[in-house]
């Protein structure tokens, strides 16, 4: 498949440049030597020469041309061209200089450059540039260069560094790029008495992070009179937190007296290494840059933990915790909640939910950490309410029991937290408390009158939750011995059965229509028993027992609660 292309006609100059660049690579032996030079002294000399003004301004290029010319005179082997016949040494030192012209580039030579002082060189360069643009170059200036200096800041090609440029007679080429002195950034935590001249400083004093250039005349490409270069330089404003370019700030020109370029940033900058870039850019699009590395000090400010206010919650209810009141100068990256009810357990995140299964009071610990590892803790006390009633059974007391003599009541009371009291009521009157298992009450013989009675047992836990059991019993006159009537020995089975049936019927009737104990007459079964016996077992029931108090028929649940 053929590649679709569109052929664009270029100007003869561009075509010539392309041909010569190609020939340069193909036909000229290449090697590269590169070195970075400190140009402070040169820049100072340029400034000194230009002080006072008046005559043609001396440029750094003029200085370079002069330096090359002197070097070539000392090293004639370099002032030469390789030919098929050998190395042809030139007698004249003619230093060509790349000059931007409309639509391209030419490199006319400063003839006999080694015989010109710096100022004369500058004037020659100025003259060459003017004539190059007006088409008035001499043919020998085109053909007789022996060495070429190309400075990328006076070209119109947007390249940072020219590597090689072929002059028409392929003389050696010296390329020069705009220079920017190395900018060594460092972090100033106010421990420095004054920033070092020539360095970029990140200054975090006063809670600000500033990118400060503290020198003047140290940084900057210098103008070249022979070009259209307009002296201007810009600092690049960089938001170090987001790496976003905020914009350019004009620094100054043409000597680039740099004041302070303050870069206001968010006050909270996470610890870490940041790169700032200072970039100098001229009107022709040439630029150079220096990176500045900054290591911020570690974040040593701990966060502030807030686990929220203490609270009370029912057992088995879901509780949402909230640590969003916690703060840090940078950011909290970890929330850990430690619970100690049951086995130790941790939950994570600012707002976890948790269910407390066991009543009690617990301290929950919140630990917050920032990215630098600084931690803080806070605690919240959680009171878990007991809302579970105890359980209660009366193992020794059957409903409807008929007995004579003494009665032992055994209660089995349990609670998820603990039973603190078991109370016995007889006919709604509090009789006895038992504070510890086994819970047992003894109603001695004769303590209850013959007749029907209501026995209630209530178990309480510490939270006031309770459980109740009620039994109805009938006290009959007896030998004072066991619960079963001894009359069996003496009476007929039938009578006993009759008596039992009759007694049960009575009990059932009474259960349906409870009456005050005082109104209970002598129970018929006793009579029947007595009738069916040959001899009275004991003294016959006489008067009913002394009238008992007459509390409400049903005990008030709040009556005599143990702990309130």
């Amino acid at each position, binding site marked *: 498949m053929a590649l679709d292309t569109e052929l664009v006609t270029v100007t003869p100059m561009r*075509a010539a440049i392309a041909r010569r660049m190609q*020939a340069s690579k193909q036909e000229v032996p290449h090697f590269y030597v590169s070195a970075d030079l400190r140009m402070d002294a040169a820049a100072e000399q340029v400034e000194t020469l230009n002080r006072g003004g008046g005559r043609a301004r001396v440029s750094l290029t003029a200085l370079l041309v002069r330096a090359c010319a002197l070097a070539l005179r000392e090293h004639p082997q370099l002032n030469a061209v390789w030919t098929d016949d050998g190395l042809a040494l030139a007698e004249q030192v003619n230093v060509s200089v790349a000059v931007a*012209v409309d639509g391209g580039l030419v490199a006319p030579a400063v003839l006999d450059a080694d015989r010109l002082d710096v100022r004369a060189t500058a004037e020659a360069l100025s003259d060459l540039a003017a004539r190059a643009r007006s*088409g008035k*170059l001499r043919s*020998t200036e085109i*053909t007789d260069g022996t060495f070429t200096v190309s400075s990328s800041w006076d070209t119109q090609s947007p390249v940072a560094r020219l590597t090689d440029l072929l002059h028409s007679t392929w003389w050696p080429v010296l390329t020069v790029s705009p220079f920017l002195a190395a900018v060594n950034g460092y972090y100033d935590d106010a421990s420095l008495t004054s920033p070092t001249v020539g360095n970029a400083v990140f200054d975090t004093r006063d809670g600000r992070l500033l990118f400060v250039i503290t020198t003047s005349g140290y940084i900057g490409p210098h103008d070249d009179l022979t070009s259209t270069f307009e002296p201007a330089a810009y600092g690049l404003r960089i938001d170090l937190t987001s790496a976003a370019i905020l914009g350019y700030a004009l620094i100054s020109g043409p000597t680039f007296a740099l004041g302070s370029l303050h870069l206001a940033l968010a006050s909270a900058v996470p610890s870490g290494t940041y790169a700032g870039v200072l970039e100098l850019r001229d009107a022709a699009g040439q630029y150079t840059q220096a990176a500045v590395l900054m290591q911020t000090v570690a974040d040593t400010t701990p966060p502030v933990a807030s686990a929220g206010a203490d609270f009370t919650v029912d057992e088995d209810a879901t509780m949402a915790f909230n640590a969003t009141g916690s703060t840090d100068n940078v950011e909290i990256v970890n929330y850990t909640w430690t619970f100690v009810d049951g086995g130790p357990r941790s939950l994570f995140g600012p707002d976890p939910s948790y269910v407390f299964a066991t009543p009690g009071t617990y301290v929950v610990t919140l630990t917050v950490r920032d990215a630098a590892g600084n931690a803080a803790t806070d605690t919240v006390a959680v009171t878990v309410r007991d809302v579970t009633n105890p359980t209660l059974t009366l193992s020794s007391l059957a409903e409807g029991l008929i007995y004579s003599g003494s009665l032992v009541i055994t209660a089995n009371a349990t609670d998820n937290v603990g039973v603190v009291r078991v109370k016995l009521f007889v006919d709604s009157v509090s009789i006895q408390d038992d504070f510890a298992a086994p819970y047992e009450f003894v109603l001695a013989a004769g303590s209850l009158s013959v007749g029907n009675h209501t026995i209630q047992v209530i178990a309480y836990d510490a939270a006031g939750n309770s459980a109740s059991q009620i039994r109805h019993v009938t006290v009959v006159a007896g030998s004072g011995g066991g619960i079963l009537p001894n009359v069996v020995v003496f009476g007929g089975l039938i009578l006993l059965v009759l008596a039992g049936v009759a007694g049960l019927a009575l009990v059932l009737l009474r259960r349906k229509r409870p009456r005050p104990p005082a109104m209970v007459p002598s129970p018929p079964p006793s009579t029947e028993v007595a009738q069916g016996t040959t001899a009275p077992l004991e003294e016959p029931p006489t008067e009913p027992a002394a009238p008992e108090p007459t509390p409400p028929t049903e005990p008030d649940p709040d009556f005599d609660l143990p702990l309130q």
Partner: protein
Amino acid sequence: MANLGYDMETGKIVSWSKQVGDTVERGDVIAEVETDKTNVEMESLASGTLVEVTRAAGDEVPVGEVIGYLEADG
């Protein structure tokens, strides 16, 4: 026509700076030449009198071709 560039093939005579009969010193500009890169003032490489112009202004002249004759002094 002088070679004013590494791969220059032709040069266009824009104008003659000297007329036939003029005395020419070495280094004097004798013509303005347009190459594919720029306009150049062509210098004389010798001294003498311009006796003949073989290519007129406006002509495209291959490199190495004669554009005129100088008669050396003496």
